[in-house]
């Protein structure tokens, strides 16, 4: 630009705010981020208070208070390390800054690891939006759908079609008959269970009816353990789907923010021994962002894990 070659004005006039543009930008961005998460948290509060019930039993929802608490500690510790890193950058102690940024990065990974473990529990027990039965009949139908899917995968229906074909060779026929024979028992049990649920022979609108269905399913699973290992316990969770939606929406977006933070710190760490004062603003702004991520978790932890 042409004016860059002209001598600097001697005036003490300062335009704008007394902070670097990047820091101003970060704070404006954080302002929008506050709105972003306020919308989620506000919706969660409305949905929760507007519902007659809410799953709060951690045994049922597979919410791990200890691991959530540990993750809170991990983020707080990482926030503390970022502050130390930024202070070291200001004091031009870049080795110390790099050390603490590395620790922050590691703690971010630890946070994601614990989050992954918690998510694994949710996926393993099928605590997922749209997949949770909210009454006994839905629980029975879910078990039927899962069993039907397993039965379909065995290919028994296709084998029967092939057996009925006039072109099948005697060798192939014997092979298919043997395969069908091994599956016939499982097929009978699945069909029996399906019939009892679909025709409501268990009387699923009653507690004892639910217990009958549950016992029947357990018996079937005990009889065919290898085939039915993926069938979930038909746990009824009233308002479980909206709970799971809120949980995954809020913790998921938070986790995305953690990943972005890791990228920001990763870019600094990539400088290695070349880290110098030109990165001070970057570390400060990334630090502000990271503290915000910590701040969100400070509210998500009590709202989702304790209340």
């Amino acid at each position, binding site marked *: 630009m042409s004016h860059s070659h002209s001598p600097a004005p001697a005036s003490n006039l300062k335009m704008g705010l007394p902070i670097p543009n990047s820091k101003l930008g970060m704070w404006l961005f954080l302002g929008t981020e506050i709105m972003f998460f306020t919308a989620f948290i506000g*919706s969660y509060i409305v949905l929760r208070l507007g519902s007659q019930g809410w799953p709060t039993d951690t045994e049922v929802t597979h919410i791990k208070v200890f691991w959530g608490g540990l993750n809170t500690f991990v983020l707080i510790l990482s926030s503390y390390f970022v502050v130390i890193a930024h202070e070291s950058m200001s004091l031009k102690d870049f080795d110390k800054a790099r050390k603490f940024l590395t620790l922050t990065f590691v703690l971010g990974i630890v946070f994601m690891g614990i989050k992954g473990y918690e998510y694994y529990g949710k996926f393993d027990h099928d605590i997922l939006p749209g997949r949770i039965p909210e009454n006994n009949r839905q629980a029975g139908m879910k078990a039927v759908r899962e069993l039907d899917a397993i039965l379909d995968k065995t290919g028994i229906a296709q084998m029967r079609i092939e057996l009925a074909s006039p072109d099948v060779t005697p060798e192939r026929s014997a092979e298919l008959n043997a395969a069908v024979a091994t599956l016939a028992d499982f097929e009978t049990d699945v069909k029996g269970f399906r019939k009892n649920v679909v025709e409501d022979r268990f009387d699923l609108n009653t507690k004892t009816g639910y217990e009958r269905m549950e016992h029947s399913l357990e018996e079937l699973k005990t009889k065919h353990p290898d085939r039915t290992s993926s069938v979930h316990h038909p746990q009824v969770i009233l308002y479980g789907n909206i709970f799971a939606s809120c949980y995954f929406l809020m913790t998921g977006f938070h986790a995305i923010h953690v990943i972005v933070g890791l990228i920001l710190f990763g870019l600094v760490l990539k400088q290695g021994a070349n880290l110098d004062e030109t990165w001070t603003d970057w570390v400060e702004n990334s630090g502000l962002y990271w503290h915000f991520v910590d701040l969100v978790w400070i509210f998500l932890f009590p709202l989702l894990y304790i209340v």
Partner: protein
Amino acid sequence: MAYRDTAHHEHEHHEVKYVYIFIALCVFTGLSILVDALHGLPYAAKVVGVLAVAAAKASCVMLWFMHLKFEGNWKFILLAPTTILAIGLPIALMPDVAVNYYIKDVPQVDDYEQAMAHAPGGHSAPESSEDHPPNTEQPAPEKSH
């Protein structure tokens, strides 16, 4: 940019023992878990307790870790709109919370309450030929609330 150096020096002049803030945050986290563990506590007291602790933790992070305590008055101008909007949003949603116009007669509530009323119906037992016999001696399943 002359103000850049000013901003950095500003921080260096404030000797903050960040480790104390960190310890305070850890104590607050422990307090949250303690409130959760107190079984005799009324639910409302628990909610207010953990949210108050969360607010205290958030204040610590914003004031010291994010340096807002030491920043100039620009922080008020910059954060006022978002703060007003963030407070305004829950207030705008308040009618939803307070009026609570949701229909109470949703099917799953009816079904669930009926099921919980443990009233065995007059339905036929499952077929014994290919199905499993009913066993009412099984322990009651753990149900959600």
